[in-house]
């Protein structure tokens, strides 16, 4: 099932290839002697600049599909091209580098490093780049300013509210200027107000900065921020 959101997708200026092209993706987990089919014959395309919500009940395969797009998990069958790259042809090292450069990942539980300040958490992905200290600082400040936390740079995660932690996590996801943002239940641990702030930021990133956003959510209200909502049911993508 596909629904259309109130926010229009930014108009494409020229014909661009789809940013995500998944074909016949299947994923089977082996748990003890059982086989669990997480995804079955999932084919999906996501256009550059889209804001897509993936919805479905628990165990429907939403997060598994998101992880496939991020190259943090590999399918049992099928192919996936993200930004033209057949990501399953990459070895672990190449995949790590690819994620660092191309993907911004936002977790439900923020997953900030507790001993690092907000600025240091945001800087973490940049430590793997060739950017100078000054350039990294500039990127970190820009990212934190975008999420409205420029005055919380020196705060540790425990000194921030849940909403602020998630905004730091968003800043960390965008600091390397990836083309695609993947968010796994980004508002799942937040109150309504904080959730709304986070969704506004993601909408702004999509509309102003043309980031492609793929968001897994249970929340129909959150999904309402997306241009397109795709439903998964028992590992099958609904038409």
């Amino acid at each position, binding site marked *: 099932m596909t629904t259309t959101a109130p926010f229009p997708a930014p108009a494409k200026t020229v014909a661009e290839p789809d940013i995500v092209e998944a074909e016949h993706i299947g994923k089977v987990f082996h748990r003890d002697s059982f086989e669990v089919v997480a995804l079955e014959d999932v084919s999906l395309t996501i256009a550059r600049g889209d804001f897509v919500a993936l919805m479905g009940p628990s165990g429907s395969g939403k997060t598994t599909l998101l992880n496939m797009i991020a190259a943090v998990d590999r399918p049992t069958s099928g192919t996936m091209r993200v930004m033209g790259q057949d990501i399953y042809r990459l070895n672990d*090292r190449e995949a*790590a580098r690819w994620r660092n450069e191309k993907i911004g990942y936002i977790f439900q539980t923020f997953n900030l490093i507790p001993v690092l300040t907000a600025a240091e958490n945001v800087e973490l992905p940049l430590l793997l780049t060739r950017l100078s200290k000054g350039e990294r600082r500039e990127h970190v400040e820009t990212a934190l300013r975008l999420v409205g936390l420029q005055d919380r740079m020196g705060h540790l995660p425990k000194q921030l509210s849940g909403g602020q932690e998630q905004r730091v996590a968003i800043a960390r996801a965008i600091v390397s200027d990836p083309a695609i943002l993947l968010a796994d239940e980004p508002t799942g641990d937040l109150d309504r107000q904080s959730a709304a702030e986070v969704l506004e930021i993601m909408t702004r990133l999509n509309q102003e900065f043309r980031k492609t956003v793929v968001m897994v959510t249970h929340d129909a209200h959150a999904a309402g921020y997306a241009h397109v909502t795709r439903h998964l049911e028992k590992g099958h993508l609904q038409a």
Partner: protein
Amino acid sequence: MTLTGFTAKSALRNRRRSLLTILSIAFSLLLLTLMMAVWRGFYLTKGTPAGARRLMVRNRTSLTFPLPAYYGQKIAAVPGVKAVAPALWFGGVYKNNKPQNFFAQIGTDPKTFFQVYPDYGIPPAQWAAWRRDRAGCVVDARLMAQHHWHLGQHLFIKGTIFPVTLQLTVDGVFHAPPGFEAIYFNQKYLQKAMPPLTSIAGMFYVLTDSSKNVSRVERTIDGMFQNSPAPTRSETERAFFLGFVNMLGNIKAFILAISLAVVFAILLVSANTMAMSIRERIREVAVLKTLGFTQRGVVGLFVGEAVAIALLGGILGTAGAAGLIAMGGQSPQGALLKAFTVTPGIVAAALLVAVVVGLVSAALPAWRAAQHSIVEGLRHAG
């Protein structure tokens, strides 16, 4: 922030645990450093160039059996011998039996003693004064400072082996290597009080003309007295010293056993800390890998943490050992410690052990953590 900064912050994230680990490693490496200093002091220190030319000649049966005094003249006539000085252990008590008042008192011949020990550096005028003064003695500089003596000071030393109380005057000060602190007095003073001692010597100190001749002179002297009633045993100054050490038991095996136990203990402590720390951070590993850290990068971070903790412990431990030896050497009870030194080489070796312990203790748990798939790691509740 840098990766090094990240590693340092991570290493100290559980401050109490990190501190306890650092202290455990520090204590163990303090012991290891002391053991290495003892090993070096006993087995590796070569002594002075003159020391390499010296021989100690004693009764083959035991150090407690004397030699005839006339052996001195015979030894002096051996080709390659430059000077000979007799020595007799007095074994008296200065003031009381407290350890801080213990030092060696040895009767010798003032005329030849500093010919055999030119490296002890006594001022010629003081040596001359001692030669003129039958009741005089010369004192090692460290003993002089420890007891706040001065030239002209009168020392009363009550004999325990010989029923004589020496009343000596300090005529000179010399500088012996650490561990060789003693006072030397004119043996004629003792012989006058006990005439039978005129015909015996406890042992002889011999200086050869060249270190190359030491073995030959050694064999000649022992061969000369082989069939006499008092056969001799000649050995180098170093071998003589090690003979004393070996009286304590198999010191080498003792030091090796302690060192191995210490290294094994710190390995366990560090491995336990790292295993706990890494197990708690499986989820964090998954997050780092999601952000783009490679498996090798993750292993590097954890190993870096372990090495940082072990190095901190190592620095504390070696500093503690150096301080202990320095302070102990100052105290009267720690006279033996003066023979030991924590050299830069020992510090480097101890720190190398710390680095290796850090590497070995973290490598396996870090590698296993890095092997976890990201999906598994993100599900991890720890």
